[in-house]
């Protein structure tokens, strides 16, 4: 019945189409297509085997150790990331991180050839800094709990959306944030354009209150220049284009805009007030019977707004089993910090189930326009000033490698060891007198070690 009908229909179409030049061109490719298809027909499996279930949950766990030399910051952190895969590519992601920080961190004060006594950030006690050493605050101790959750799902065939929340808590700092994004595929999914935003609201609640900008460090117990808690708001916007270039090459370009406002200073950072000729920090006498700073220090003060723009581009290139991942980032902001980051990693397979991935990263930044190694007593007080080395002019290098393998049961295990170093200098015009002979910029050497374990259930 139907068989005869359809043969007629097919013949009719053939007749109808005859004489069309397109037909004459076509046979080759179709016969080729057929020939190709004919090459390998994989038999239909008659066995009633149950199809393998997709794992519903994927877990990634990691243990991180970050350690700076000279007893500076040590961080041990545990991270857990769980992904629940739902039907039709809907994904719930939950992340939990606990990190524990200990060690000492540079406070911003300049080294000196005599002992310096500094009041702790809490205002409750003091500590001494040996001559000719960089002043570090050794009370740096905190545990941070961070949680985040996100949901992503396709919206129709071409759109993909995601929403998320983040929350973190430290002893003196609370962060909460929301984010959302949408992407659309174009050009047979070869081009993906994405838009995203994130809002965050942070509360800064240091013990003893946040110090007023550029006011002097006072004696123990004197909290007259401390304010209450402060807040910080950040708005991030991101516009990205991901483009498939070829079967083996993928490129992404992102522009991001970030506006931070509110309390952007670090309540624990200070600056030394120095003699305009010798460059030595000016002495100070604490109130009799009370402990207090031996020298003159001011709490730092940064602008209450910062706008950053960055351009990030990443390429992934597959070369017969090896994968090259290169990224470049340019960032500029209205604090006059410009930074450039180049990151490269190359993943080499070793055998069937393991790999090694060397990694290098170069980073360089210029100093903020209010970065000051010290403040000179002879000059009027600037509007903003910070001696935080992270706002200074420095280069950083990361080098290391990761080794990983897949176990027989499909679990992923990897180890990563990296070395991170920073090397910077104070702009030469800022150094006065004796400062020229001293090591005024802290520098940094650290080890990063990661162990990670991933599995599906």
């Amino acid at each position, binding site marked *: *019945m*139907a*068989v*005869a*009908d*359809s*043969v007629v*229909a*097919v013949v009719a*179409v*053939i007749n109808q*189409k005859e004489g069309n030049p*397109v*037909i004459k061109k*076509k*046979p080759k*490719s*179709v*016969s*080729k*297509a*057929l020939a*190709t*298809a*004919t*090459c*390998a*027909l*994989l*038999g*239909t*499996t*008659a*066995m*009633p*085997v149950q*199809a*393998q279930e*997709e794992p519903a949950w994927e877990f990634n766990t990691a243990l991180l150790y970050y350690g700076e030399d000279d007893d500076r910051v040590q961080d041990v952190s545990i991270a857990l990331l769980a992904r629940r895969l739902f*039907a*039709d*590519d809907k994904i719930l992601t939950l992340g939990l991180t606990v990190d524990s920080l200990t060690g000492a961190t540079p406070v911003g004060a300049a080294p000196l050839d005599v002992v310096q006594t500094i009041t702790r950030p809490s205002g409750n006690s003091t500590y001494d800094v040996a001559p000719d050493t960089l002043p570090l605050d050794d009370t740096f101790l905190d545990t941070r709990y961070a949680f985040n959750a996100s949901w992503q799902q396709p919206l129709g*065939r071409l759109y993909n959306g995601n929403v998320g929340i983040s929350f973190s808590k430290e002893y003196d700092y609370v962060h909460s944030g929301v984010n959302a994004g949408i992407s659309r595929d174009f050009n*047979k*999914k070869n081009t993906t354009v994405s838009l995203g935003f994130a809002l965050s609201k942070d509360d800064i609640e240091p013990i003893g209150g946040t110090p007023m900008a550029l006011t002097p460090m006072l004696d123990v117990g004197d909290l007259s220049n401390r304010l209450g808690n402060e807040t910080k708001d950040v708005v991030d916007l991101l516009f990205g284009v991901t483009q498939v270039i070829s079967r083996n090459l993928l490129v992404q370009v992102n522009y991001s805009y970030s506006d931070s406002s509110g309390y952007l200073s670090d309540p624990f950072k200070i600056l030394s007030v120095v003699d305009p000729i010798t460059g030595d920090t000016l002495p100070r006498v604490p109130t009799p019977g009370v402990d207090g700073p031996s020298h003159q220090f001011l709490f730092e003060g940064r602008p209450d707004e910062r706008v950053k723009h960055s351009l990030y581009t990443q390429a992934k290139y597959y070369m017969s089993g090896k994968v090259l991942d290169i990224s470049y980032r340019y960032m500029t902001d209205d604090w006059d910090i410009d930074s450039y980051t180049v990151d490269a990693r190359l993943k080499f397979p070793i055998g069937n189930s393991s790999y090694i991935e060397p990694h290098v990263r170069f980073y360089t930044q210029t100093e903020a326009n209010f970065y000051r190694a010290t403040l000179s007593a002879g000059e009027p007080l600037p509007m903003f000033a910070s001696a935080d080395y992270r706002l200074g002019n420095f280069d950083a290098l990361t080098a290391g490698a990761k080794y990983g393998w897949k176990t027989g049961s499909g679990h992923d295990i990897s180890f990563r060891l990296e070395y991170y170093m920073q090397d910077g200098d104070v702009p030469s015009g800022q150094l006065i007198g004796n400062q020229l002979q001293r090591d005024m910029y802290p520098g940094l050497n650290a080890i990063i070690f990661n162990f990670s374990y991933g599995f599906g259930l």
Partner: protein
Amino acid sequence: MHLPGNTRFLLTLCLIVIFSTAVNAADEPELIDLTAHKGKVVIVDFWASWCVPCRRSFPWLNEMQAKYADQGLVIIGVNEDTSEEEVAGFLADYPARFEIVRDNEGSLATEFGVVAMPSSYIIGRDGKIVTRHLGFKTKLMDEYEATIQEILTAAPQVAASR
């Protein structure tokens, strides 16, 4: 979904028919031999081992093949992998109880103008593409099935006029 550009497919189909008759399909049982399926409803499903939704579609395709074989449904899975090993691995995990052919140079996919993976083309009893599905969503399975039922029960003339 109705494809105004059905002519290209018809052309392909015709040529397949011509080719298979000319070469004598009896000697080559592995051919995608659409002449053998004349008058049946044929689903040509383009898939690959690396395509995640394809994995989900296989159990469903098996089910459809088993359920509607009596009513004249034939499913042909056109595989687009380049490595035979991957295909074998995939089929071990997600067995196919329907016909699988390989198109490892993408020629058939090019002919069909495949724009997403997986893509299913449903060919009515009259040999014309009635509809195509891009991608595979488990929540649309009932809808897909309803379409198949509709095409299976449609008289060829009705299908042709759609």
